């Protein structure tokens, strides 16, 4: 709650507002407290001096008029809480230096009359007791022994001040929290708005401003989600509606006599078909899969994938074992891996899958090949949808530029990541990291 010690303006809004409010209010409170104390002691002093003047004047006149042997009896009655009268010369010494004492001495001298005043002597340090020496008209000495009262501040005042500070701290904390907590919730909700668009809505409650901000945020989130859904729907609708004409064209081609043009048209149609299929698949991965996660024996999943390639006459090797079931979406994982393996088979040779448990909570599956690899500066860009390397834009190896994008999106949807790198000795490594 407190600002960090010297050396830095705190970074969080909470601490900053807290510091400003607390320091400001504490200063104001301290100042007014000091002012009150000063004012009070001044008033008390003035009152005390006024009383002293009257009192000393009358007491000295009384003692002066009394016969010397009666004076002793009166001394007790004339004394007050913080001063008393003595019928002797008192203790000699230097006059006190405290201003209040000097003022009191001057007051006494004035009240008793200049001719009766002899001097004053301090009995202790500054602010300590002191004596004022006088002479009565018959020449006998009179001493006023003064014990100044300690400062006029009551002992409960500092305690009150402490309580006030505590109250201040509590109120400031509550107020600052009230302001900063909705901000935190908003930030958390915005962060959760990941690629699957399944963010929680922010609760629309609290002070008016917070309710407005939360409502605006929720509306924005819904709009974004709406736009993306619409985008997916448009892509899906186009893809779907293209399937009927493509089907017709393929059937017409099948009914035609074979010729050179026939084969080329067939290739063009296949390319269109692939684009439609992968466009639809990409739109789906953006929208988040409907597949529910299950516990999967990853070793058999990889082995069966490799078997599928073998059955189709493609050589893919498998190394490593995980040895325990993981919780994931098997169809999505299969799709990622087959996209990566298809890619490796298209551009390279010696395609292999290496699986390895990194830690207790993480595993990696690497799909490797020996081939041209990808220029370093393009390694990240090839994961973007519809991005293709210049060298693969011809039709033979073309593809749609969606295979890797789909794999990267799905890896993210599985809570993992996909990273491409070039291997020493040539070739590409596509590494998926997955939580176990």
């Amino acid at each position, binding site marked *: 709650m407190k600002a960090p010690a010297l050396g830095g303006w705190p970074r969080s809004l909470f601490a900053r507002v807290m510091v400003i409010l607390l320091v400001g209010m504490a200063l104001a409170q301290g100042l007014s407290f000091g002012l009150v104390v000063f004012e009070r002691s001044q008033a008390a002093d003035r009152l005390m001096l006024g009383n002293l003047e009257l009192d000393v004047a009358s007491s000295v006149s009384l003692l002066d008029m009394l016969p010397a042997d009666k004076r002793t009896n009166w001394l007790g009655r004339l004394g007050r809480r913080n001063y008393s009268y003595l019928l002797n010369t008192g203790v000699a010494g230097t006059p006190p230096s405290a201003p209040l004492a000097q003022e009191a001495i001057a007051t006494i001298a004035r009240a008793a009359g200049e001719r009766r005043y002899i001097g004053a002597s301090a009995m202790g340090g500054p602010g300590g007791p002191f004596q004022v020496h006088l002479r009565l008209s018959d020449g006998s000495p009179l001493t006023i022994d003064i014990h100044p009262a300690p400062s006029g501040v009551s002992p409960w005042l500092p305690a009150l001040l402490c309580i006030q500070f505590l109250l201040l701290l509590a109120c400031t904390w509550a107020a600052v929290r009230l302001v900063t907590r909705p901000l935190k919730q908003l930030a958390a909700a915005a962060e959760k708005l990941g690629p699957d668009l399944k963010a929680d809505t922010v609760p629309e409650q609290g002070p008016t401003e917070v309710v407005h901000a939360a409502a605006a945020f929720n509306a924005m989130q819904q709009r974004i989600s709406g736009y993306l859904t619409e985008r997916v729907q448009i892509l899906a609708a186009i893809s779907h509606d293209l399937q*009927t004409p493509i*089907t*017709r*064209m393929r059937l*017409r081609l099948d*009914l035609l006599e074979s010729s050179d043009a026939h084969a080329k048209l067939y290739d063009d149609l296949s390319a269109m078909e692939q684009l439609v299929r992968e466009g639809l698949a990409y739109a789906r991965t953006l929208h988040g899969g409907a597949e529910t996660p299950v516990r999967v024996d990853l070793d*058999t999943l990889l082995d*069966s994938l490799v078997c*599928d390639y073998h059955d189709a006459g493609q050589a893919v090797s498998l190394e490593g074992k995980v040895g325990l079931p993981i919780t994931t979406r098997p169809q999505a994982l299969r799709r990622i891996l087959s996209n990566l393996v298809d890619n490796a088979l298209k551009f390279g040779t010696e395609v292999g899958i290496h699986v390895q448990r990194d830690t207790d909570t993480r595993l990696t599956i690497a799909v490797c090949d020996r081939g041209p690899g990808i220029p370093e500066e393009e390694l990240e860009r090839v994961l973007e949808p519809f991005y293709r390397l210049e060298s693969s834009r011809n039709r033979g190896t073309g593809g749609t530029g969606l295979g890797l994008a789909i794999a990267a999106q799905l890896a993210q949807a599985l809570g993992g990541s996909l990273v491409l790198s070039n291997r020493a000795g040539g070739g590409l490594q596509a590494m998926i990291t997955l939580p176990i």
Partner: protein
Amino acid sequence: MTDHILIVDDDREIRLLVAEYLERGGMRVTTAANGHEMRAALENGAVDLVVLDLMLPGEDGLKLCRDLRTGEHKRMPVLMLTARGDEADRILGLEMGADDYLAKPFAARELLARINSVLRRTRMLPPNLQITEAATVLAFGPWRLNTTSRHLLDEDDVVIALSGAEYRLLRVFLDHPQRVLNRDQLLNLTQGRDAELFERSIDLMVSRLRQRLRDDAKDPQYIKTVRSEGYVFSAKVEIREEHL
């Protein structure tokens, strides 16, 4: 005898093109644009197989397939045409009672091959057990095969993945338990959906499947070798309604 194929698709052009191609291939073809016409055609003549489009206006292919399976034509072979590209959707369509599926766009010769394969399969060996919409899980021993998601689950509910060929072979065994199947029959029944060549010998595939089922090849529990005849799936298989 020529095979009589009923094509149900809402696109007139596709109906005509498919009909022309199949007729060139020596089949008799009737076409229907919707469920109403389909039912009328089924009443009229001895249809051998229905090619059914999944996306139909009004009653869709899934509903029509369901109706077929519960009515008097419940043994009618159905080949489903799906317009969706996604694997899960295709499988869903298939397991709603169709005998096979083909995704649009398809090549005509692929369709012809599939029709022939389904006809061969259903004529040669109709399944002992019929998967229905509600009951899609085949259980044997501690194992369960979910025919919708194609997941094989062990006793701890862990998914044991199967390759395409392994799944098809297991399905053939589970559809015909306690029946000796020779290698030719197995090869015919498991022939790939995607015209994929089934090059590996049946013996190799059976041994792979035994490994997946953790079955001891020397004393197998599930798939037993019948000397000089073939294989038999000896365990008891039941169909369950389960949501896995």
